């Protein structure tokens, strides 16, 4: 990074399937006010607002315009960002570039989705190619299901492993006051849940949530002057796969898989040897249980084919040696345009020691890695640390 950039505050809404108590503006405002309060800052001090969601998921375009009262962007410079599941992380990437350029000192990043108001399934089918894909396209479950079939066939993982991930996520979510699905479930509950698209069952999949997340990024001087616990953005990397791979993953493939490519570029920038030791906690983007196990392998937390063994051996539990998604992750809360930002914000909270009930206490959290998916092959990675020496 040419100039250092830190997260100096953030906030999120109480995520839920129904938020009939607020409209979209009010939902966004709930997160923005929480972020300003956390940073002890007023909206007048913000130089630029980066805003995003997934286009039309709540049936309305140009949300940066319609929600300007709630976001605080009135009269301020800024951008609207829409990049699928990666939206929230791309917003942060844009914010980081704004501040790192030296043109802005304080950038407010806001991501949201109010899924109950629109038709996410129908709009998602519009993401498919209009000629080669749309007449075949279904909802998002199918893509992850095909990845899961490939994973099971290639590595010998069982449905039980998926159930272990499902349980870990929802039990962690119960410790997180903001999470949507706080379910006290067992492995048997997950295995007995309704089959959606073999091998993915109801509890193997993320919910459709309403929610927002906001974060304030600042330059080094502002961060040191104004913030007791700045969290530094140490590196970001993004990469896109070929569109006609249609979001599916053959886990054994020799083809370039850009979550892997992106991870190795990021590790090279930071001089990371063993990511499972270098980072103290991970917040990854897992809309389905199987995606979490594939992430373990793509991030080189284990060898290819060993991802399911990490969860089998409790390695990635909140008190395990490689804690992954202590917040409950996307499996417990998926307000799409906010989800990837929530990964970064939750990782920052872990470093600050402010995660509350789901704080990792079994070790000192100095460094964290957050990931994002758009489709399953569009990747944004963000590495954070508590000090510039880490």
């Amino acid at each position: 990074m040419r100039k250092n950039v830190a997260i100096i505050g953030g906030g999120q809404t109480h995520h839920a399937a129904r938020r009939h108590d607020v409209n979209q503006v009010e939902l966004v405002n709930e997160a923005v006010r929480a972020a300003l309060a956390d940073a002890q800052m007023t909206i007048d001090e913000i130089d630029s607002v980066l805003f995003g969601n997934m286009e039309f998921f709540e049936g309305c375009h140009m949300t940066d315009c319609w929600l300007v009262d709630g976001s605080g962007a009135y009269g301020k410079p800024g951008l609207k960002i829409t990049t699928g599941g990666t939206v929230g992380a791309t917003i942060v990437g844009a914010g980081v570039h704004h501040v790192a350029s030296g043109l802005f000192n304080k950038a407010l990043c806001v991501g949201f989705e109010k899924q109950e108001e629109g038709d996410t399934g129908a709009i998602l089918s519009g993401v498919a190619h209009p000629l080669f894909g749309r007449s075949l396209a279904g909802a998002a479950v199918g893509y992850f299901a095909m990845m899961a079939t490939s994973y099971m066939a290639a590595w010998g993982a069982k449905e039980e492993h998926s159930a272990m991930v499902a349980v870990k996520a929802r039990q962690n979510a119960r410790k997180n006051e903001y999470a949507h699905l706080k379910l006290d479930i067992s492995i048997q509950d997950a295995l007995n849940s309704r089959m959606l698209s073999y091998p993915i069952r109801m509890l193997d999949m993320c919910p459709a949530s309403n929610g927002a997340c906001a974060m304030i990024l600042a330059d080094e001087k502002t961060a040191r002057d104004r913030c007791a616990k700045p969290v530094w953005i140490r590196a970001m990397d993004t990469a896109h796969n070929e569109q006609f791979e249609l979001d599916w993953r053959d886990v054994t493939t020799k083809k370039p898989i850009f979550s892997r490519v992106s991870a190795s570029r990021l590790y090279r920038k930071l001089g990371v040897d063993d990511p499972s030791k270098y980072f103290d906690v991970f917040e990854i983007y897992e809309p389905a249980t199987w995606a979490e196990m594939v992430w373990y392998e793509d991030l080189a937390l284990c060898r290819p084919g060993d991802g399911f063994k990490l969860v089998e051996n409790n390695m990635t539990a909140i008190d395990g040696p490689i804690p992954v998604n202590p917040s409950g992750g996307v499996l417990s809360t998926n307000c799409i345009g906010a989800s990837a930002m929530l990964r970064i914000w939750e990782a920052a909270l872990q470093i600050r020691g402010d995660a509350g009930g789901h704080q990792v206490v079994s070790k000192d959290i100095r460094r964290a890695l957050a990931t994002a998916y758009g489709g399953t092959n569009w990747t944004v990675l963000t590495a954070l640390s508590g000090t510039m020496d880490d």
Partner: protein
Amino acid sequence: MNPEHDYGTFESDQRIVAHSRYFAGLMGSYFFVRLRDEQKIVGARCEKCNKVFWPPRSTCGRCFSVLSLENLTEIGPLGTLETFTIVKYREPVHPRKAPFVYGIIKLDGADTSMVHFVDGVDFQKLAPGMRLRPVFANKRNGNILDIDHFEPLDSY
């Protein structure tokens, strides 16, 4: 306004219907016309990358070479099932009523795969590696569903 009164939460139900018209472009037009009229499937070869892409396209995304009609090459019609899912739930956006099977199918001679339906198969026997053949629709109108579905080669 009476603060004592509970005004509840008001909502409005709405529906938008939108029409679109898409052009298939140079390579796509060739693909759909040959599929409709001759039941042939074509991909595009990038000589530089030594790869055959489906769908055919005019720029290789990997090396950025310009591809044109001379790069088109017939692929399939037989292919191999790479992975699959059995859709068990009904949803308005689904193109078919559950249960049905989506497969990722790599046609012979292609380096990228196609998503399509797999019919006429015992769910228990579905497995990556299964050999498939396309079944073309009787009435074809230049749509990817001119391939109605794929089915196992063995039952043929």
